[in-house]
């Protein structure tokens, strides 16, 4: 990885964050309906990240031990467990399924 690639990546990544914060964010905040949209964006985007992390391998859909971990995490969140318990149980469930598979 060359330094110009690192700088180019940094400019693009930070640039998108700055545009979101200083242009699109305030624009959405001016109208109540769009402000609600901004409120819901993290849930939709983070759920997309969760799906990609849990159900894909090499850009292909995959169902493996991570799904068990995710299911365990969902149950723990539903039962209002603490973040530590959610993470611990999910990692344990994933490791256990791998061990048994």
């Amino acid at each position, binding site marked *: *990885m060359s330094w110009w*690639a690192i700088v*180019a*990546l*940094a400019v*693009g*990544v*930070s640039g*998108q*964050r*700055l*545009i*979101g*914060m*200083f*242009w*699109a*964010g*305030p624009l*959405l905040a001016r109208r*109540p*309906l769009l*402000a*609600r*949209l*901004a*409120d*819901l*964006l*993290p*849930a*939709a*985007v*983070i*759920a*997309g*990240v*969760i*799906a*990609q*992390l849990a159900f894909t391998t090499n*850009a292909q*859909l995959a169902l493996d*031990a*991570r799904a068990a*971990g*995710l299911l365990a*995490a*969902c149950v723990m*969140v539903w039962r*209002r467990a*603490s*973040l*530590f318990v*959610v*993470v611990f149980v*999910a*990692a344990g469930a*994933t490791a256990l399924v*791998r061990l048994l598979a």
Partner: protein
Amino acid sequence: MSNPADTDGSAGARAPEPRLADYATLAFTYFTVGVTVSVAMVDAGVSIPTTLGAALVVYSATSELAFLAVKDGGGSTLIGVLSGWLVASRFGLLAVSLGARYRGPLTERIAAAINSFDPNVGLAVQQFDRRRLRRVFWQVTAALMIGWWVGSILGAFLGDLIGDGRAWGLDAVFPAALVAIIGSVVRRRDGLTAALSGAAICCGLIVVAPGGLPILASSLGAVLALVAVSTSATAVTSSPPQEPTS
């Protein structure tokens, strides 16, 4: 207790402030991410100073991993950079959500934008007033950075000793933490619709769209949730009043 003058009338979900154990868990979560990225970089032949420099300057694990994936597959540096930008587009979307409610001096807002990650934005925008939003954002950011830096440095120098974290289920840590972060939001109907739609859109596009695009498209889940809630509210408003039963 929050000061009413600090509230901004946002319709967001309300969550309690994270506790010390939550911050420690978030630090551990980003520790695993830091280790993963550093080990991948060093395995790909990147020097340790460059690995740590990228961790400092690029500030996006997914962008670094996307760049490496393209280069490993024989792609050009330009395509690798473009892929890194695309997968980082979610941070732009998260900054949109943060920018809609974050108030503060210009330099602080610049720093907040550059530090926009899933956990700190996800938890901060659930806070009721702006003072709490700022406090939670920066406290979570501090926890993430401690974990990220310790993980990045250990991964770069001791990656071989740490071994394969998958055997310990560490690859489930980040998604599990994210589920907990949006846990309060998905208890609301619109939040649940946004999350399920976003996940479904992402899964549907994984096979056909280039890396980064499925997550970018998952933002449409928020639009679908708004439409669904508006439609049901309209249906309730326009339905005839029920006759009283005796």
